């Protein structure tokens, strides 16, 4: 019974938290640019407006992929917040991403095509870092289960500083923020129009937005795992990381995909793998 309560409350609360974070993000960004900015609840108004719009498509089956994208993002979140296997939830997240990419391919539009390819580059860039951190967590706690990782007594970040830093580095990809907002971004400085979401509109675009809110909670939850031994410190750290992402977003311009992959892999191989090797030899 308890588990169903968790699932239902996650499904209800996650988009609220995610949307709120998105609103706060816009507000802070505006302040950084000396603007007043929209109200904090603006993301919700945007989505409500989108829901009322006409549903335009290029290919009749393109939206099905987005349903499954949303579906599997929620599924990932449920796995994550019920304390299941961490690797499995990341695989579920990848599955969701693949549905998104395939949807963009399906539209047969050059701009979404380019966006889809860049989305793939982004997945290539961030996945090694995430998997390496999971391995690090396993080495420290002896379990892939999130519930065990959270219950571990000492803060993981003491053992995994390199991995934690690496995850913060690649986080901009998952937040779709500069300098790694290659496949689409929230701002109108696009040489590829709206990238991967170019041909999605109305209700479907709203679904993508909501999926993104769900994703926020999973990513921030992942960061939280590094600090989980102390919940207060954990939540504080997550908020700091979130703020840091907004700051980076406003300071840096977008980079090319080559640099994205190269730098992310470099960080993964140095900070991430280096951390693992050191840990391996200490344990031995």
């Amino acid at each position, binding site marked *: 019974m308890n588990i169903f309560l968790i699932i239902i409350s996650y499904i209800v609360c996650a988009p609220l938290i995610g949307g709120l974070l998105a609103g706060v993000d816009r507000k802070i960004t505006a302040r950084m640019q000396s603007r007043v900015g929209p109200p904090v609840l603006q993301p919700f108004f945007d989505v409500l407006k989108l829901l009322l719009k*006409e*549903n*335009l*498509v*290029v*290919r*009749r*089956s393109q*939206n*099905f992929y987005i*349903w*499954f994208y949303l*579906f599997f993002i929620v*599924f990932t979140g449920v796995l994550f917040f019920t304390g*299941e*296997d961490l*690797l*499995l939830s990341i*695989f*579920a997240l*990848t*599955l969701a991403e*693949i549905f998104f*990419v*395939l949807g*963009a*391919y*399906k*539209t*047969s*539009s*050059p*701009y*979404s*095509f380019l966006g*889809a*390819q860049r989305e*793939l*580059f982004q*997945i*290539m860039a961030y*996945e*090694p870092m995430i*998997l*390496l951190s999971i*391995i690090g967590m*396993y*080495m420290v706690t002896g379990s*892939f289960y999130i519930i065990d990782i959270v219950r571990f007594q000492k803060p993981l970040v003491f053992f995994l500083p390199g991995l934690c830093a690496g995850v913060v580095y690649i986080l901009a990809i998952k937040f779709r923020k500069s300098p790694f907002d290659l496949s689409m971004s929230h701002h109108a400085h696009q040489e590829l*129009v709206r990238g991967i979401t*170019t*041909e999605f509109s109305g209700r479907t675009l709203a679904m993508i937005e909501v999926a993104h809110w769900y994703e926020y909670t999973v990513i921030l939850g992942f960061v939280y795992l590094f600090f989980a031994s102390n919940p207060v410190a954990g939540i504080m750290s997550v908020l700091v990381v979130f703020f840091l992402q907004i700051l980076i977003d406003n300071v840096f311009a977008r980079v090319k995909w*080559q640099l994205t992959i190269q730098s992310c*892999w470099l960080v993964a*191989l140095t900070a991430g*793998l280096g951390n*693992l*090797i050191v*840990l*391996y030899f200490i344990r031995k």
Partner: protein
Amino acid sequence: MNCIVFLIAIPCVAAFLLLFLRCRVLRGWIVFLTSFLVCCASIFLLVTQFHREISYFDFVFPGISSAMAVIKVALAAYIFFIGIKHKKFVISGLIALQVILFLSFEYTYGHALVVEHNLFIDKFSVIMVMIVGIIGSLIAVFSLGYMRDFHEQYHKEIKDNRGFFFFLIFVFLSAMFGIVCSNNLLWMYFFWEITTVCSFLLIRYKQTEESVRNALFALKMNLFGGLAFIAAIWLLYQSTGTIELDKLILHGGGIALLPVVLLGFAGLTKSAQMPFSSWLTGAMVAPTPVSALLHSSTMVNAGVYLILRFAGVFQVKLAGFMLGIIGGVTFLIASFIAITQSDAKKVLAYSTIANLGLVVLCGGIGTYEAVWAGILLIIFHAIAKGLLFLCVGIIEHKIHSRDIEDMSGLIITMPKISIMLQLGMAGMFLAPFGMLISKWAVLKALVDFNPVLAVFIIFGGTATLFFWVKWMGRLLIVSGEPRDLEKNISLSEWVPLTGLSLLTLGICALFPVVSSTMIEPYVKEIYGVSIAMSRGNIVIMSIMLGLVMLFPLSFINYGKNVKVVDAYLGGGNASPGTSFLGPAGKITAMETRNYYLVDYLNEKRLLEFGVVLCLVLIACMFIVSYW
């Protein structure tokens, strides 16, 4: 007992019938009937062996060993002649050396050699028999329709030699059954050499200059393996006094390492690992069913079978670690090369090499977790790869190209084939399908052994994801006029395609059962312990599988509540909707092409790098094992 002999004998008998038969209708029936019998016998074997751990058979038949020796020498003479004829003296030299070793072994020890059991069957053998029997015979049935179209429609210039073709296919299957059921290593060596010769003849089938060249190359590579194999038998007999597989494995870590490393080397050549990988990519010149057979159910599996058999010996040994690294390097490099390829068969070939690399990695590490993961990999890979090759074969015939970029709109023109193709691809890399489950298992096994090794699978895995998704996406893109290209596909092609698709799905649903009834007992028998995926994760996987399967349901809603518009083309849309107003008002058709990253990843250079690295590793492996 009878079942194994049946499995080895029936394809052989059928093969000779087919060789001398000229009637086409009768040939079709024999192929169909033999495949059916082989399938049934495999399943029967599974049923009878289900509750038994291991069964031995002493197949005493007067003069069988001498008959084998005669056949062996005759084959060797043939290869020797081939080598001379094509001025490939390395081939002749290798085979001469092999025969000398073989004959002197027979001469020196032959009379004193006591072999208790020539054949045996345990859970691992049963798994392999199922793979060879079911997938192999499905491919044989597929070849019926495919080769008819091949000769009568698409390649009239190539000499129709179908009787010989089916002869080779069935001899191949028979030899594969022999390999996986042999307890006597000399027998295994005999069957091993038959697969080498069969693969040579199959690759050469088209008789063009290119196919002869590639076939000779494959032959050369595999002869290196054969030489290592016979040398290993020599050394094993000298150091342990037995050439029986079960006894050697029972010895475990006690037996000399060098001969086992030699067997591992033989496995590397047969499984087309670097530095030998080029023979498998060269083998793509053969008709597609041959590629399907070599890649999924037979040839390459023989190598990894041997390596996994001796995994217990490699465990915690430096030489085993080196072998594992060779597999890891092969996985990584082959995955990245696959990104650069736009030839569908080449992509599949590199993906095969990569995935077998993972199995070798598992075998080299040799922990019980790794062996469990390795066997899973073989099963899932065989099914999905067989399906992929058959689909690509059909597509090549219908669109006259196997370039991935020419495959756009396949979802409209060949909906069923393209869905099967996508299913096969999903089976290769996507959760919750087969290969991902096993990659996950490999990852866990690696992390428990040495987490640093996980780097291979992590980075190789991202490359895998990239090249599969971009291909999958290409199939979905719709441009051009809808045509129906699926009309003339015969029943003998539909049946294997459907069968393999169902197997791809079914094995994902059934894999907990396969694991608990087949793989775990085997691993437990060797190591005393075994692992299984936790119940909770299996449930989650099943839920995911169920959810993904719901995807076709969304098509109930096809075209409802949506307004169809043209894609955004920078405001310059023209008619038809997939073209735009280009410079000077010229109507230009829109075109998209996937990234192949050829500026960053150079096939030749990566290959050279891999070959050199793996050669060094092999040298190290031998030096380490000799010490």
